């Protein structure tokens, strides 16, 4: 069972959540606004490792939050700003 830590509600089984997406990070080297939009929307990295992701706690507080997850182990890590 995969457990996800909601910042408002605590640790809950993953089926209470809706997965949003990987939090897209556009490289700073891409400077053209249109190119940045394309990169943001379409250029998925499919990282094997630690990713920033958006999750929605649908069965609890109904809030979106950002989580860090290691996609190779499914371990959730603390988010550091």
């Amino acid at each position, binding site marked *: 069972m995969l457990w996800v830590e909601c910042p408002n*509600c605590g640790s809950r089984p993953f089926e*209470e959540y809706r997965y949003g997406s990987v939090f897209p990070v556009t490289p700073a080297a891409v400077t053209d606004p249109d190119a940045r939009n394309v990169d943001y929307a379409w250029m998925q990295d499919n990282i094997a490792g630690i990713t920033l992701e958006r999750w929605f706690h649908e069965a609890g507080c109904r*809030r979106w939050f950002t989580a860090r997850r290691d996609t190779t182990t499914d371990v959730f890590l603390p988010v550091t700003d």
Partner: protein
Amino acid sequence: MLASDSLTFVSLRGWRIIADPAALDSAPWPSDAHVVRISPDDAFVIGATEPTVPADPHAIVTPEHGFAGAALSAERTEHLALHHIEWQLPGGARPRVAQGQIAGVPAKLVLHADGSALLLVACAARHELEERIA
């Protein structure tokens, strides 16, 4: 089955408030109000008197008729936690709001100091939850 402790849901009338978290922390709630803090910026205030949030001029306050509630005895709350809740009830000070799936239905529990609780569920899911935990 707790035969001596029937579960009766009633529709709740109250107010839903979306506001700055600090403003909600300091809001002067009406004396007849029962406040359920759903998230830092979101509160469900059960009661007839319209609440105000003076510290946030942009607060959104709307009537909320979408929840049903049932008062649970300490015994039934314990039974619910043992048999229908997969996650751990929060420890610490009471009253405290816990929310998540109960018997597979999204619901909320307002846990009181004496072990009793108020079970809240969206009206649309009320009968489903009733059937599952009866």
